[in-house]
Structure formats: structure tokens, C-alpha cells
């Protein structure tokens, strides 16, 4: 079941993100640092999960945060949360990069065959979190984006469909196949990850 995570983040105690953004727009540099500490790490993690490339994920994070700074003077408090807005921007930037990386539309990408078991064994290592990230890295782009947005970011299928520029049924198919592939990739680590047979 999809969970709310960074997509609908609860704000830390203290000033709201809205208030911090307003302070930033009034020239308070300390507010910028606090917003960075709150928002940017999640943006980077999302971008890295989608792109599976640290350098590109950092570029996307920088681009997304820069857009937030630029919109700050016109930000309407009480509407969408800055974290939600930033999440959408990040997803759009990352999916655009995936399209450009392939040079074709994301929904036209041919899916590769299953990776060799030895490769999987070598890549899936460490604790559960690392194991999941490693397995996600082995999914085809479209499946990975759909699974991340649905199961890690808590987006609805229609929202994912709009983001990826495909139909809702295609999203359902991608998430189902992605989950199945993940289950297949991770089964070899079941004991190591602490799951009973």
C-alpha cells in the first residue's frame, strides 16, 4: 500500500516551511539554510532513486531548489506546501532527464531482459534500505519511476500517469511488473534481510 512520505511530508516542529520561505523572501539568509536542511536531502534522495546517478541527482536537486528560491517572493502561503511543490518539480525534472537520456519518450523505452543472478547477488548487499535501493537500480526506468512514485512517494496512479505522460492502466501495469521484479530480485536475500520463509 502506498504510504505518505516526502510527497506529503509533515513539517518539523517550529516554523512552517511557508513561514521560512516568507522569511527568505524578506532577505533572511538563515531561513534559506533551514529550508535547505529540511527539504534538500529528500529532494536529493528522490532524484537519486529516480535517476540512479549521483551527479545527475545533484544537478536536479540544485535546479529544483533554485526554482523554489525564485518563486519565493510570489509564494502564496496556505496553498500547496513547499515540500509538495518541490517534490513535483523534482519528479518532473528527473523524468525529463530520463527521457533525454534515452532520446525517446519514456513510454517508448524497450525493457531489457532480466539481469543475471550473479549480477544481482553482487549488487544487492547491505541492510534492507540498501538492498531495496540496489534492487530499484536494476529495474527498467519506467518501472522504477512508477514504483518509486507509487510506493515510496505515495502518489496516486492518476498523478503518476500525468507525470509520466502515460495512461493510468499503463501505470498500474508498470507498478505491478516493477513490484514483481523487485520481489524476484530480493528473494535471494530473504534470510539476510530478516524475513521468514
Amino acid at each position, binding site marked *: 500500500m502506498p504510504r505518505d512520505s516526502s510527497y506529503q511530508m509533515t513539517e518539523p516542529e517550529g516554523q512552517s516551511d511557508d513561514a521560512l520561505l516568507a522569511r*527568505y523572501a524578506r532577505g533572511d539568509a538563515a531561513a534559506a539554510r533551514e529550508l535547505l536542511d529540511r527539504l534538500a536531502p529528500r529532494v536529493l534522495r528522490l532524484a537519486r532513486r529516480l535517476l540512479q546517478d549521483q551527479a545527475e541527482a545533484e544537478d536536479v536537486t540544485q535546479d529544483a531548489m533554485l526554482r523554489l528560491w525564485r518563486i519565493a517572493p510570489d509564494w502564496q502561503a496556505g496553498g500547496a506546501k513547499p515540500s509538495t511543490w518541490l517534490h513535483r518539480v523534482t519528479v518532473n525534472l528527473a523524468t525529463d532527464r530520463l527521457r533525454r537520456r534515452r532520446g525517446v519518450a519514456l513510454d517508448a523505452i524497450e525493457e531489457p531482459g532480466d539481469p543475471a543472478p550473479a549480477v544481482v547477488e553482487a549488487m544487492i548487499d547491505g541492510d*534492507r534500505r540498501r538492498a531495496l535501493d540496489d534492487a530499484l537500480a536494476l529495474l527498467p526506468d519506467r518501472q522504477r519511476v512508477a514504483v518509486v512514485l507509487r510506493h515510496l512517494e505515495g502518489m496516486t496512479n492518476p498523478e503518476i500517469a500525468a507525470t509520466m505522460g502515460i495512461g493510468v492502466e499503463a501505470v498500474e501495469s508498470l507498478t505491478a511488473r516493477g513490484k514483481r521484479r523487485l*520481489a524476484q530480485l530480493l528473494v535471494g536475500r530473504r534470510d539476510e534481510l530478516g524475513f521468514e520463509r
Partner: protein
Amino acid sequence: MNQDANNRSPDFLDDAALDALFAQACDDAPAPLPDALQARLMGDAIAAQPRRVRQDGIAARFAGWIAEFGGVPGLAGVAAAGLAGVWIGFSGPGLTGDLVTEFWQGAATVSPTVSGWVEDGPLVVAGSDLLTLMNDEAER
């Protein structure tokens, strides 16, 4: 293969385990930013930040009005020109005809010097003299 089959198959991690992985991934705090990226992002934030003091209302409009005149120096020039106009108005230079008369009288005091210069003789050089002079210069 359907979901129930996945749950029973030894070839797949069951859905409960997979959901537990998703849940843990959602709850985990993200890693802190790399220092270099943090510096880049903070640099962007400062560069894109609006000016610290933002003027609103009457003060902003007044500042804009001053700027239209080229700032404080421009406004000082306008003020000086205005004061000069007031001074001229109060001093009463009289009719324009008087000004003209005064001007030509002043010119007359200069004319003797000019006349004296003219009386030294016309500055005329005959054509043959001019050619001789040019040839001399060319031969040097």
C-alpha cells in the same frame, strides 16, 4: 503469475516483506547533503535572494520618483536650476531690448582691438608669391 502465487512462490519475496521494505524506506531519514552540494545550494540561495530591505508603499514610490531624476545628484541639479530661475525673476533684468543694447555695448569695447589688428593690412598673398613659397618648402 498473480499476487497470491507470488506470496507462495520460493522465487519471489512475498508482498508483506516487500511492503515492509517500502515502509522502512519511507520512514528512513534521508542522508545529509554532501558538503560540496550544500555549498552550491546555499550559494544559489543567497544569489537568488531578494534584497534584504524591501521598500513598500509611499517610501517605495518616493524612491522611484527620485530615481526618475537620476537619484539625489540629479534632483540637486533640478533644484539648482529652479533656484536660479527664482533669482532671475526677483533680480528683474528688465526688457529684452536693454539686454541687447548691453550686449553690443560690450562688443564695442572689444572692437578697437580687432580694428587695430585689421589696420595692420589685409592678409593677402599674391598667387606668384604663394607658388614661390610652396616650391621653397618642397625643395627643403
